[in-house]
């Protein structure tokens, strides 16, 4: 995620934070608006259900507002917000987790998987999927679907690290796991997604897109 003018955005954000901390709560939405999609994505990564994720995203925002005085300037506001969200989502899942869900996750990954090394399956020349492809809803949908097939421990780390852009340490803290676990899971998530995307080419996910070889519009 590249902000258009980080310097300016940062200054405005610091201003908003201190205004809200001094009691101007009506400015809170302006403060969190740039992060609402990240907050939702973080909740969705953990809960998988859009309805629950939206609810948790709202709850997390309210919690952030209630605790805004505890925010310290040395932290990144976005990271603080994401960590609150992850915490809310994990609590919700602990509360509502069903036997069926656990069974599903357990069945798919199996114990000790994390320790076993994941070997890539597809070694054909990589066909690049350019960022422009993301303009297409069906591409975004396919990528989201692929992500959804990962076990939750890989999905969570991947979303926080590669989509929310938390660093390794922050990801570890948010999920309550070690830095080493974050690295192991992240590696695995990235390799699995790579294989899923490679398979996606074969299944024609991207084949009719204009960026296919010989038909590049740019």
């Amino acid at each position, binding site marked *: *995620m590249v902000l258009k003018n980080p310097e300016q955005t940062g200054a405005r954000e610091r201003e908003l934070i201190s205004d809200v901390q001094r*009691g101007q*709560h*009506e400015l*809170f*939405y302006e403060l969190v*608006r740039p992060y*609402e*999609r*990240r907050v*939702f*994505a973080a909740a969705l990564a953990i809960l998988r259900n*859009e309805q629950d994720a*939206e609810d948790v*995203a*709202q709850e997390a*925002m*309210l919690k952030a*507002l209630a605790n805004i005085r505890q925010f310290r300037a040395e932290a990144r506001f976005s990271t603080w917000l994401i960590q609150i969200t992850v915490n809310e989502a994990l609590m919700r899942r602990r509360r509502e987790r069903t036997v069926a869900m656990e069974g599903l996750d357990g069945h798919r990954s199996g114990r000790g998987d994390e320790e076993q*090394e*994941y*070997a*890539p399956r*597809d*070694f*054909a*020349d*990589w066909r*690049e*999927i350019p*960022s422009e*492809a*993301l*303009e297409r809803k069906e591409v*975004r949908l396919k*990528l*989201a679907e692929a*992500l959804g097939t990962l076990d939750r421990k890989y999905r969570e780390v*991947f979303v926080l690290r*590669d*989509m929310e*852009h938390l660093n*390794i340490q922050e990801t570890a803290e948010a999920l309550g796991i070690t830095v080493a676990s974050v*690295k192991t899971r*992240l*590696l695995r998530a*990235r*390799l699995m*997604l*790579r294989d899923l*995307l*490679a398979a996606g080419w074969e299944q024609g996910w991207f084949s009719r897109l204009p960026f296919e070889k010989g038909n590049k519009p740019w």
Partner: protein
Amino acid sequence: MVANQKMLNCEQVWREISNYIDSDVDTALRSSMDEHFRTCKRCASVLAGTRNVVQLYGDERMLEVPAGFSQRLENRLVNRLVVNTASSGSRWSSWAAWLVPVAALALIAGGLKLANTLTFKHPVKSILAAPGHDIPPDMVVVVSAGSKLFHVPGCSFIRDKATERTLTAKEAIQDGYVPCSRCLRQYLKTGLSEHSGAELDAADDDAGGRPEEVVSVTGH
């Protein structure tokens, strides 16, 4: 260094490929891996694909929210602000919060006491406050201030003749009046006839009746 580079096999490269992308490998390992990627097409493909994954999913366009998400979030925040503003918002709110139930209890207690006082002064629910039976609805009756009884005009038990008012029995009953147990005795339940005249007198005399209950209330 050259020896190290030769020692890296594909499995070792895959193990570090994520750290490599994150620039989280030391210089020696990085150059060994660079060398491996130059010579190994398989690993070069793994690297290209993994980078592609990181780049695609890291794009902000991948962060999608359901339709109406922003509006619902804003509404919820606004609602919370309204609630906060209405209930407190200032410094004394935290310690003042416990006053609310205390005040409520005090109000309830006071209300009960007041209600009791009123009830004992006006025992409309006494055995004498029984509804009549088969009273002709058009019969002309009289009511007066300070009593919930209605009477035949001229009844000697009308409480305050100065304020008496004439209406039909139907209207009196609709207004919550009950028949006088003396002048309209024939319309009351037969059970009532057992009560003595003295009891009836005391009951109709609202201000003076039931002294023991009045004491119990005012004794607090």
